[in-house]
Each structure stands twice: as structure tokens, then as C-alpha cells.
């Protein structure tokens, strides 16, 4: 399809993001929500929906929902009702899901996404509401039966629903990236799309540019990575445009993304759609959220990258680039701040993280949570360099690799053992300088005539005589004093 045809159209996309909350227990009972345990071991009469059981609120889940709402500039609703969404499915123990319908806890928010070209765009949120997860059907474990694991049943979720503000897959990608970063920073969710703790569905439609009506929307599900969100949406936009161009009509349906083939496939049509028969959950009294509670949650909220970047630029005098790289992951930013507790040289801390540490992690294929060296040891090595006892290059090329291998040893110990501690004492360097200058009287004349590059030779010779222990900076200064 030519770009000129594509250019006639505009896509309209809205996202629905489900995020499992990092609570210790489930949304409406005290079962553990630990992931990866043996099937059907994290259940109780409540999560299994046994007759006569009743749900009860999980306060932490409510607080996390409010926290996300505050981070997304939402209004927080004072008077909340839970609702039942009724449908039959094997993994839904009660035959209904407890969710929120007409009174979502957060509404009318917005966030700003950044695009590759450096531009930004505001994305408006319709709502964030609380609900519970279902169990998990497994169709590939047994030849003859489908198996169900109810460990996940009742896990607390928030669903973030955006306005149809996206126009491209790239924008959706930028949004889900941002949301994942936010939920991780706020300790709301581990943001793992592959394991399904963060899930994204997209409503996609296309229309001729300038049209006031929306086209028929298609819901796309099962995009289990951030890249797949972009790929699935891009595919779906093209599919719809091609269909319309060929004289066809887009049908209202739900499609699933096949990541292997990079296409979307029909899952169910509108005729198969459920009437969920929402009504207020009679087993839970209305939830009232007061201003004091909201303010308490706000005051305890962890900082978001945006705030940290501003702080690092302003207080720590980092470049914007360094600040951004460090705040990419919450754990990296936390590591950086811990180094900064023990050294005042913030710039050096940033350089270490974005330099030696980063390349080490890349080589080893690990992230910062698995990096063995403690932040205080990195602060130590920075301080040793700043005291002139160790050269930068010796530190990064010789001491650092040893630290990574033997994290229990201090950098000073390693540097001493490797005989890398520099001499910064002028009294012991001066005789060496005199010795070198005496060796090259003709070079001194050349230097004085303007061949300033000879300084390197003098410094090098002094270093040689000192067996590398003379502080090059001090050597330089002393040489200059003598020659200039």
C-alpha cells in the first residue's frame, strides 16, 4: 500500500491496561499473591467462591490505585462502589468478577509521552478502576483435559483506560513504556508483560483525515510485550485501511495478536459479545475516600523519573542526558543515590554508572539488582581517585574488574595489592623531575621554543621512574612550574 493512500487516513487508538498490584494478599481475601508457586496452592474458600463466603476490602490495593491516579493527575473519587461483572468462564470461580463500573476510583487524568523525534504529547485518561483477576486456564498441559490454576484468582488489579488519543503505534508504545516505568517507580506493579502482570488491550479504528465520526473499532488483545503493542497496532491500522480501500467494511470484533506471524486474528465477533449485567456489589459497602487519606498517600509516594531528572540536573549538576539514563530504571536511580550518600562527586558517580558499570552489566547480561559491587564501594573508589591516590584509568581498567570479581574486598585494598596507589607528594616527585630534566637538556630548549607537546614526554619519563605511582596531575603542575 502506498504512503499516499495511507496518508489519507488517520488511526484512532485507545488503550486499556491491566496492572497486577504488588500487594501481599489478594483483593478481597488474605490469600498470598506470590507468583510461580505450585498450581492451586494459593487459594481459599473466598477465592474459590465457595458458597456462603464474602469478600472484604484490601486497603493496600485501594492505596495503590489512588497512588497511580495521583501520579496520572486524576481526580480521586470520594464515594466508591464496587460492582459485579457477570459472565461464565472456567477460570472465574464466582461467575462474576468484582470490579468498579459507574464509580471508578480515579477519573479524568493525563500524562505526557515523549516521542522519538523529541516531541511530546498529552494523553488523557478516562479512568482507573480497581478489580480482581481471574484464574488461569491451561490448555497445553494435558492431552485430554484443560487444567485451571486458581492461584491468580482474586489478585488485585487496576485497569487504566485512556481516551482515544493515540494516532500511531509508536505513541502507544511510548505510553505503555511510560506506564510501565511509572508502576515500577511507584511500587505498584513489577511491570512484567511477558508474565502478564502488566497487560495491554487496544481499541483501534481508522477514518479519513478530517472526518468527525469515528470508524468502527476493533479490540486487539494478547500483545504480551511492549514492542508487540506497537507491532499489533501498526498491523491493525494497515489491515483496516487496506480493507476499506478494497471496498470492505471493518467489523466490530475482538482480535488476538499472533506474534509469530505478526498479524491479528479474529477471536470473537460482536454477536458473541457478553451482556455483563453490571450491578452494585451487595457484599461490599461503599468505599469512602477522604482528603486526609489521599494526602497521606500523596506524601508517601516515591519520586517519579520526571522529578528525579529535575533534581539531578538542579542539585547534582548532571547533564540532562546522564540524568535520563540513570532514571531509566528505578533500581539504577536508587543505586546512584546510594553512591551519592557517600561521595560529593555526583558527576563521577554518574560516569561510573553510565560507563564502567553499564558495560560490565551488558557484558554479563545482568541488571543492576544482580550487580555484585555495593554502591559504597563505588563511592570509595571515586573518593580515592579524587584524593589523587589512584588514576582514573587504573581504577576503571584494573581495580574495577577485581571489585566485580571480589565484591567483599575494598577498592583501596585491591589498588594497594596491585601496587597502583599514586604518590601525590611533591617532595618525592621533585627529585624525579630533576633527574628527567637533567637527562634531556636539548628537549627543554625545544619546549621553551614552543614545542609544548613535549610535556607528555617529560610526564611519561617521570611516571616511568616512579613506576607509575607519581600523580600525573601533580607531576604536570611541578613540571610546568620548573619550565615556564
Amino acid at each position, binding site marked *: 500500500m502506498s504512503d499516499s493512500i495511507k496518508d489519507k487516513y488517520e488511526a484512532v487508538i485507545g488503550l486499556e491496561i491491566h496492572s497486577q498490584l504488588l500487594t501481599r494478599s489478594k483483593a478481597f481475601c488474605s490469600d498470598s499473591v506470590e507468583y510461580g508457586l505450585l498450581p492451586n496452592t494459593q487459594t481459599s*474458600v473466598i477465592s*474459590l*467462591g*465457595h*458458597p*456462603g*463466603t*464474602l*469478600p*472484604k*476490602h484490601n486497603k493496600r490495593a485501594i492505596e495503590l490505585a489512588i497512588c497511580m491516579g495521583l501520579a496520572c493527575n486524576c481526580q480521586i473519587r470520594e464515594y466508591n462502589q464496587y460492582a*459485579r461483572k*457477570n459472565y*461464565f*468462564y*472456567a477460570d472465574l*470461580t*464466582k*461467575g*462474576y468478577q468484582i470490579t468498579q463500573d459507574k464509580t471508578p476510583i480515579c477519573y479524568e487524568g493525563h500524562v505526557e509521552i515523549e516521542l522519538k523525534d523529541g516531541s511530546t504529547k498529552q494523553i488523557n485518561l478516562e479512568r482507573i478502576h480497581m478489580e480482581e483477576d481471574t484464574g488461569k486456564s491451561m490448555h497445553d498441559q494435558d492431552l485430554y483435559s484443560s487444567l*485451571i490454576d*486458581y492461584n491468580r484468582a482474586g489478585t488485585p488489579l487496576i485497569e487504566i483506560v485512556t481516551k482515544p488519543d493515540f494516532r500511531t503505534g509508536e505513541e502507544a508504545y511510548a505510553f505503555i513504556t511510560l506506564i510501565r516505568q511509572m508502576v515500577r517507580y511507584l511500587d505498584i506493579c513489577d511491570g512484567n508483560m511477558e508474565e502478564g502482570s502488566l497487560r495491554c488491550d487496544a481499541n483501534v479504528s481508522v477514518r479519513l483525515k478530517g472526518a468527525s465520526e469515528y470508524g468502527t473499532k476493533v479490540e486487539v488483545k494478547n500483545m504480551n510485550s511492549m514492542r508487540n503493542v506497537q507491532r499489533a497496532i501498526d498491523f491493525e491500522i494497515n489491515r483496516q485501511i487496506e480493507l476499506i480501500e478494497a471496498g470492505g467494511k471493518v467489523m466490530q470484533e475482538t482480535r488476538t495478536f499472533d506474534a509469530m506471524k505478526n498479524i491479528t486474528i479474529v477471536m470473537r465477533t460482536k454477536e458473541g459479545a457478553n*451482556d455483563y*449485567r*453490571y*450491578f452494585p456489589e*451487595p*457484599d*461490599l*459497602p461503599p468505599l469512602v475516600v477522604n482528603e486526609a487519606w489521599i494526602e497521606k498517600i500523596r506524601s508517601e509516594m516515591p519520586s517519579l523519573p520526571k522529578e528525579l531528572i529535575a533534581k539531578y540536573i538542579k542539585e547534582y549538576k548532571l547533564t540532562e542526558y546522564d540524568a535520563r539514563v540513570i532514571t531509566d530504571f528505578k533500581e539504577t536511580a536508587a543505586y546512584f543515590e546510594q553512591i551519592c550518600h557517600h561521595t560529593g562527586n555526583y558527576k563521577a558517580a554518574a560516569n561510573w554508572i553510565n560507563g564502567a558499570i553499564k558495560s560490565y552489566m551488558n557484558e554479563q547480561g545482568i541488571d543492576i539488582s544482580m550487580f555484585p559491587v555495593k554502591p559504597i564501594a563505588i563511592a570509595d573508589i571515586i573518593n580515592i581517585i579524587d584524593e589523587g591516590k589512584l588514576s582514573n584509568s587504573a581504577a576503571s581498567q584494573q581495580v574495577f574488574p577485581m571489585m566485580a570479581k571480589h565484591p567483599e574486598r575494598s577498592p583501596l585494598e585491591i589498588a594497594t595489592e596491585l601496587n597502583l596507589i599514586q604518590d601525590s607528594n611533591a617532595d618525592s616527585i621533585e627529585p624525579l623531575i630533576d633527574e628527567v630534566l637533567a637527562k634531556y637538556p636539548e628537549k627543554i630548549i625545544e619546549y621553551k621554543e614552543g614545542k609544548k607537546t613535549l610535556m607528555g614526554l617529560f610526564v611519561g619519563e617521570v611516571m616511568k621512574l616512579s613506576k607509575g605511582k607519581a600523580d600525573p596531575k601533580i607531576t604536570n603542575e611541578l613540571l610546568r612550574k620548573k619550565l615556564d
Partner: protein
Amino acid sequence: MNLFNNYIALQKALEQGTYTCVDIVKHYLSNINKQKHLNAFIEVFEEESIERAKLIDEKIKNKKAGKLAGMVIGIKDNIAYKGHKVSASSKILDNFESIYSATVIERLLAEDAIIIGRCNCDEFAMGASNETSVYGPVLNAANNEYVPGGSSGGCAVAVQAKLCHAAIGSDTGGSIRQPASFCGVVGLKPTYGRISRWGLLAYASSFDQIGPISQSVEDAALLLEVMAGADEHDATISTKAVEKYSEINTDVAPTKIAYLKECFGEGVDPEVKEALYTWMEKLKKEGHEFVEVSFPYLDYLVPTYYVLTTAEASSNLSRFQGLQLGHRTSEKGDLEVLFKKSRTEGFGKEVKRRIMLGTFVLSSDYYDAYYTKAQKVRRIITDKTNDILKDFEYIITPTTPTTAFKFGEKSKDPVAMYLADIFTVQANICGLPAISIPVATHSNGLSIGLQLMSSVFKEKELLNFAAYSQSKHL
């Protein structure tokens, strides 16, 4: 054996050693055996209750017995009791055993009550005659051709026929009070939120309340005192302190009481009217004031009740799918076949009717016309009823317009059956406490019950007044 119709007398006899708990249990077991045709019990915990009686006899000897030591209790088959079957008289839960206990069960056992068995009831508490039970109807012990009422029919007959000392039922629209009235015993529905619903198999969550059926008002008060109060398992329960209901005080000051004009209107049996009138006359002489009030929303009570309760029931009963819970069809097919067939085979006709009605009123096209409207009417009825209760201590009505009816008389006509609830549903719609006490015997030999209803959490006053009125009659 002299059977005691209130617990205080029994307690004395047990403490003095006139009887042991084992004697009492064995006596009731033999009564149950003799009266099997009444079909009041679905299952009797014979050996277990004798064993428990022995334990409690020890406790009595050591003066360590609880408040209900030796009280033999039947429980409605919709209350979960760990290690025991619970079926709500439905095929869909045939052989289902509960792995946890209802809060009321734990509280009764903690006070040394003896649970003798589970009582028959209408399927999932849906019915007013005990004719919808998969285990067959319960017979009214006063006349076996008549229904015992429902849905707690087995409980009422068990107390009526002295098959146990008292019984624990549930009341969603009159299911404790109406059978109590039909069987000539006392039935109390407490304020919504007074007793924990944890372990009560839900019919309509915002209406259901557990309550006692007993031979005396005093026993109802004692059982309420034991069962009521805060429970972390039930988010809808009140944390209001539990009063000493059992300390009945019949020293009652002159009171203003309202009676509904419609109690003497069309459709109410003349002898029922007469009994109510006589009762009022006697109390007037004691200085109490009776004022006729008209309640213009009476015609809306039953429709409002049925729209909202069936909506909640359609959702509450969705968990019985034949997969993890409930009867599973033997027919092969996909998941949809499994659900449809299991539910079709497992649920009875009345339950299906209500599930369908509830599904209909919640469907997106009809939600506002039915469900939303009924919610609004519920609010109006509640406000208007509370307005009356601002001026009057109690509202009295007959518990039911007629005495017990014959088997089959109304089972073909659901609307006629539903209208039998006309005076009882108001308390459930408004969440108010109400008690039914026997006041007279009809010329047909069946009992006539009177209902007293008060403001929320006024159980103490309600029970005192009920006991007082009985003392003036006897």
C-alpha cells in the same frame, strides 16, 4: 419427659441434674425418629450430637458450661458447618461438604449448643411453602395437609413438633417469620447487619439475615445475643455493640403503635383480622395507643422485592457451574454444554424462574426500567417506613394475610405465592428488625401470627415488647 419451652427452665434442670444433655439429645432423637414423616430434617447428626452432649455434661459438672449448654439446635440447610454437608435443598449441591463454618455456627458451638441436624427448606431459600426442596415438602405438624410455610419450613416444624429446642433459619423476605407464623412458634429477623452472613449460602445478599426460630421470645433473645455482633468476615455487618437481649424486661411504658390500614383490608382472612383486633384491644386497656396509618407503597413492596432479590440471586447462584462447584452433568460437550446442562439438571423450577427473572432485570436493555427503578423505590419505601417509625415505636401487621394453606394450593400460581409475603418483605426491603409471635388459633386449627417491626437496631425494645405482650395474653 417434660420438655422445656424455654431455655432458662432447661438450664436449671441440667444444672440441678434432673436431666443430662445426653438425655435431652436422646429424647429429641427419638422424637425425630417418630416424626420422620414431617420431613423436617434432611440429615440428623445422631452420634455426633450424643458425643457432644457427653462433653457438655462434663462441662456442666465442672461449672464451665457456656450460655447455651445443652440447647439442641437444628440449622437450616443453607448454613455452612465445617465437615458437614450443606445443600440449600438443591440437587446442584447434593453431597457438597463445607470446609469451613459460618460465624453463627462457631458462636453457637462456643457457647456449647448442640447441633442436631440440618433442616429442610425451600431450594436456595426461594419459596414460601417448603414445596421447592429437592428433598420434598415439610409437613405442618398441626395438620399434615397444610404447608409449614417457607423457606425455613423445616426449622419451624422442628421447633413446632419439638424435634429440637430451637432452630436457626434465614430470612430474605419473610422466610423465618412466615413459617414461624404458620407453625405457631416465634421467629425473629434481626436488623440487616446485626448477625454475620459469613457462611450463609446467599440468596439475595442485601436482604438476607440469619435469625432464630424458637418456642419463646426469651430464647430468641438469647440466641440473638450469642449470634449478633461484629465479624471480620462480613464487610456489611454493623460493629454496634451487642445488647443483653436475654435480660428481658417486661416492664413496658405506654407505647404508640402504628397498624397498617391494609391489615383489615381485602385478602386478609376475617379471623386473622379478628385476632389482630383482639390483641390490640387488650393492649389498649394497658394504656398503649394504636393508630391506623396508610402505607401507599404497599402494592410496590412485592414487585420491588422480587426485582432486586432475583437480580442478586441470578449473580449469587452463578458460582454453581458444575466445574469447580456443584452438580456436573454426565453429558459430554464443550464448556458451554457443561455449564448449561449442569445448571439445567441441578436447579429446580422455582430457582430457574428467579435466575431468569434476575438475569432479565439486569440485562442492559431493561436495567434502568427494572433494576434502577426498583433501587429507587427501595429507597422511597425505606424513607417512608422510617418516617412512620419516627412517630411510632412499632408497626404491627398480621405476619401473613391467612393461616397456612394446603399443599399445591399456590404452587401453580407464583404470583399468589409471592403475595403471601406481602407483610413480611417490608422489613427486608428496609433492613428493619421484625418478629413474628403466635397470638391465636384459627378455627381451622392452625396458628395465627402477629408481626412487630421496629427501627433498626431496636431489637432489645422489640423483644421486650413481644415478651410483654405475650405475658398480657397468657
